[in-house]
């Protein structure tokens, strides 16, 4: 996956976020989203290690060893920020107070099941906050490429990797398209970057309804 592909997915996912929403961004493509929100955005970023009001990456003179995000990268805090402990942070998540979680995935099924933490046969030794976020956030947006590095579909009929949660995903943004789960059914609602329905169907094993809306990009 090239940086250009990642950036295009992040740019499209950024359009899903509404003014004033509280959003938690996962590692990888989601972490590129702030670059597409603009400096005047009213979207508020939450990081599960204990901060509401995440600001941009620090400049050289601004580095603070006590200020990191959940990816353990240095960050800044915006005016109006608040710090809290981890139980409080996950109470926010599990209690439905975080509006949106954007995260990557290994697989998403047509039923909204998501697998994004463990690969069978490999070590299953890190889950972090993934399960809490996909269960708790009001809207779950997955950003990922349409196929794995081995070319296998990632929007699948049934997840083969261990689940993070069942029925949790609302929106999937890939380099080819946007899928939305509407009344429990997967809908292809937008084609990106000149992709065709056929292009999407070839790399998607989940059944889906084609219901194209007006495009948001380009």
């Amino acid at each position, binding site marked *: 996956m090239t940086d250009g592909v990642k950036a295009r997915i992040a740019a499209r996912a950024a359009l899903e976020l509404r003014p004033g929403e509280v959003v938690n961004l996962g590692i990888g493509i989601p972490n590129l989203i702030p670059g597409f929100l603009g400096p005047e955005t009213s979207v*508020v970023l*939450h990081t599960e290690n204990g901060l509401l009001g995440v600001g941009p990456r620090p400049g050289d003179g601004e580095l603070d060893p006590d200020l990191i995000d959940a990816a353990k990268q240095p960050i800044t*805090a915006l005016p109006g920020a*608040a*710090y*809290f402990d981890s139980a409080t942070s996950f*109470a*926010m998540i599990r*209690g439905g107070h975080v509006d949106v979680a954007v995260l990557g995935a290994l697989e998403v099924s047509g039923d909204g099941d998501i697998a994004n933490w463990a690969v069978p046969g490999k070590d299953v030794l890190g889950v972090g906050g993934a399960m809490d976020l996909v269960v*708790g956030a009001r809207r779950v947006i997955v950003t990922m490429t349409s196929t794995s590095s081995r070319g296998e579909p990632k929007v699948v009929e049934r997840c083969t990797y261990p689940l993070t949660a069942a029925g949790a995903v609302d929106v999937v943004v890939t380099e080819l398209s946007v899928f939305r789960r509407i009344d429990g059914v997967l809908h292809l609602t937008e084609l990106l970057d000149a992709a065709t329905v056929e292009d999407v169907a070839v790399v998607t094993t989940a059944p889906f309804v084609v219901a194209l809306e007006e495009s948001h990009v380009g």
Partner: protein
Amino acid sequence: MTASTAISAEEAVGRIRTGDTVMVGGFGLVGAPLTLIDALVEASDATDLTIVSNNIGEPGRGLGKLLRQGRIRRGISSYFTSNPEAVAAVNAGELDARLVPQGTFAEAIRAGGAGIGGFFTPVGAGTLLAEGKEERVIDGIPHVLEEPIRADVSLVYAARADELGNLWYRRTARNFNPLMATAASLTIAEAGEIVPVGDLEPESVVTPHLYVDIVVASR
């Protein structure tokens, strides 16, 4: 979401509907959102309310005003006794009272805001207040299963709010307010003072703004 600071107390409590469950902060009248309660008393006709509050005010004060209007159908509290008129209303069959130990009351509201489906506590096991509740012995100690408490609307009081809706509480006026702010579909905060964004120290914010929908200044 971030909070709105642009509407009046009357408009804010206008969001309360007949039949709603409403949480109201305060320990007695300390930390109670008196401006919001007064607006509810004077400018709303929502009735048949379930009130979740540690006390049902005092005679003719705070929630005691709403009680006199006959608009409270049910109370969930740890201490009705501080308002003799609430006790009289229960005895007259006009108020349905659910009494909960104070720590369980606080914890159940926290659970309601924190997405916890229920919790086991040793408090109340083997007493009148455990009747009808699931009991379980854990490590040799009897526990009861308590359900989370949630509401349609929470009315809370904070000494200071910033324009985003972050809240800071003063002294013992904190009490149930930060818990109730988390446990309702709509949280309306009354603030003694509304300050610009950035004026509250980020480490000292007790209720981050994502819990607060509307901020109204105290009168």
